[in-house]
């Protein structure tokens, strides 16, 4: 069953002087529970693709269908609610909020979801922290964590809302190989045990080879 369906996606950035085509006629389907890697040289449109799947950016042309919903038809508020309920993001630079401690960072997506009380939020955060073996760092600020720990917290934040899709933009790009391997193990674990569909942008061929499928990009187009 297709969870992500991109049809005829085109993304063009226009300025007064120049028009740049970032994505051209992208047709991509990702099935439920699939772990897909997106590879390609820098600037080929991988992150743009991820932003469009993540409903952070709108395509110039084409339709984005996630979980059978045509997201091209949704307004900004509906898109926010959809993202909150169904998508988790993991970024290369972790992007934890520096003023919030680990628990508050992880809790963030739940605070934007209606119908979940504070006690339930705390329970879910504790559950995720335990799963990622980060309970002892619960009250620490991001500045007090190592890179690997930051990425674990970022993953915890991505999964605390129990999304169907995780979009990971070079999740191991800022980590050493040991930490990177740990993060990859974690993502595989989420994919296998929880059935979360993952789309991961990476430059690391070895990590990509471990995933179900590799989508290769060049100059805004899928080449294989």
């Amino acid at each position: 069953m297709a969870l992500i369906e991109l049809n005829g996606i085109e993304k063009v950035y226009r300025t007064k002087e120049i028009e740049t085509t970032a994505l051209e006629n992208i047709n991509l389907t990702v099935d439920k529970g699939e772990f897909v890697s997106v590879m390609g040289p820098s600037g080929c449109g991988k992150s743009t693709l991820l932003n469009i799947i993540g409903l952070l950016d709108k395509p110039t042309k084409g339709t984005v269908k996630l979980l059978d919903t045509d997201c091209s038809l949704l307004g900004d508020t509906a898109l926010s609610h959809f993202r909150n309920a169904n998508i988790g993001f993991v970024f290369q630079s972790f992007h934890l909020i520096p003023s919030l401690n680990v628990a508050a960072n992880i809790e963030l997506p739940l605070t934007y979801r209606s119908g979940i009380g504070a006690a339930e939020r705390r329970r879910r955060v504790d559950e995720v922290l335990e799963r990622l073996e980060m309970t002892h760092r619960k009250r620490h600020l991001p500045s007090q964590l190592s890179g690997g720990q930051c990425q674990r917290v970022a993953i915890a934040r991505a999964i605390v809302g129990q999304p169907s899709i995780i979009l990971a933009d070079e999740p191991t790009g800022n980590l050493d190989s040991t930490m990177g391997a740990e993060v990859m193990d974690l993502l595989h674990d989420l994919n296998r045990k929880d059935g979360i569909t993952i789309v991961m942008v990476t430059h690391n061929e070895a990590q990509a080879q471990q995933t179900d499928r590799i989508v290769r990009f060049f100059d805004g187009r899928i080449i294989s």
Partner: protein
Amino acid sequence: MKNKILQIIYDLRTQPVIGWVTIIGTALSIFLIMIVVMMQQISILSYAPETKRDRMLYGLHIHIEGDGNETGSSALSYNLAKQLYGDLDGIEDISYNSEWLTPTDAKGTTGKPYTVDLHKTDDGFWRVYEFNLLEGRYYDAAEVAAGRKLAVITEKTARKLFGDENAIGQHFMLDHNDFEVIGIVADVSKFATMAYGEVFAPITSESWSEIFGDIGVAMLVKPGVDFEHIRNQVKGRYAVVDGELAADGRQTVYHEAPYDQETIASGVGGSNITPDPDSGRYTRYVIYAILLIVPAINLSSMLHSRLRRRVNEIGIRRAFGCTRKRIIKDILSESFIITLIGGVIGLVSAVIFASYYGGLFSDFGTASVRPSLSMLIRFQTFAFALGACFILNIISAAVPAWQASRLNPVEAINTK
């Protein structure tokens, strides 16, 4: 809420200059606004002995135009005051008392000469105002009618004139006349402009002319009676007076008397002009607006700077499902907490300043006149301070919050 407070603490730690300038700027703004509010409050709100200011009306002057004698404008003669304001429908009580205070030489048993502010009143004065009688009694209607040389004095005056001796029953010289002290009242603040005095003595009905004198009338209106009902009756009485004056080619000029407390507070302006409380009100509103808008512009730019450091965070929040409305709400509420912190500092500073430099609040121009804390700290003070904080916050934070909500999430996330 907890996360918002954590965010504010973090901001103050990471951007101390901007954070503290914001708080101090807010405090200064609220300080200035509250000084203006308190000035207004002291002149409008009720406190002893002017405890019923909302029901008080004052008949103060008469203005006569035409040829012949006794034209011009001044306070009322006793007879004219009675003719214009006596026995009006809707009045609970009335007092005829001297419109002006007379600095008068007094000497008691201490032998030290002391200049007192003499306020001549009738017996109704003790009913329209609520003095705190510490000892003795007030003079009654018969004693006023008989022109008895009796006096009610304030506690401070009693000490000045008689030292530690019990003042009740004591005699003292007041403008070379022998007066007997029959009552002692708590000191009256000079801010209670209509009831203030240090020595109160029976007023006489003698006036220097048929029309003009030194009488002011203080009326306590029955609860629920419209002030316009009283004014209409007074206007009718002016017409009667006009009929009497017509033979001499003279007429009264009606200046919307009697005046309520707000008009008195705005400044009646003079006996030959119509007071305009609206203009005072508008001036106040303009002052409030300036005091809110000018700092709000500065605070807005401060908030803008603080938010520039948080663009990446806003992008992340958007990615995880925060709506634009929620971004605006969160920024406004965070900013409101900071404004409240500044507001509390500003309010406390204003109260401290006002209690030490009360002279600024009055026409007396003396720093020694200090309003009491009970005059300054009222429910209305807090309500106004809170309202001012809220408005200041909306003006200063609305634009930056709206701009933050319109950020492109992708660009925001990629901002370093």
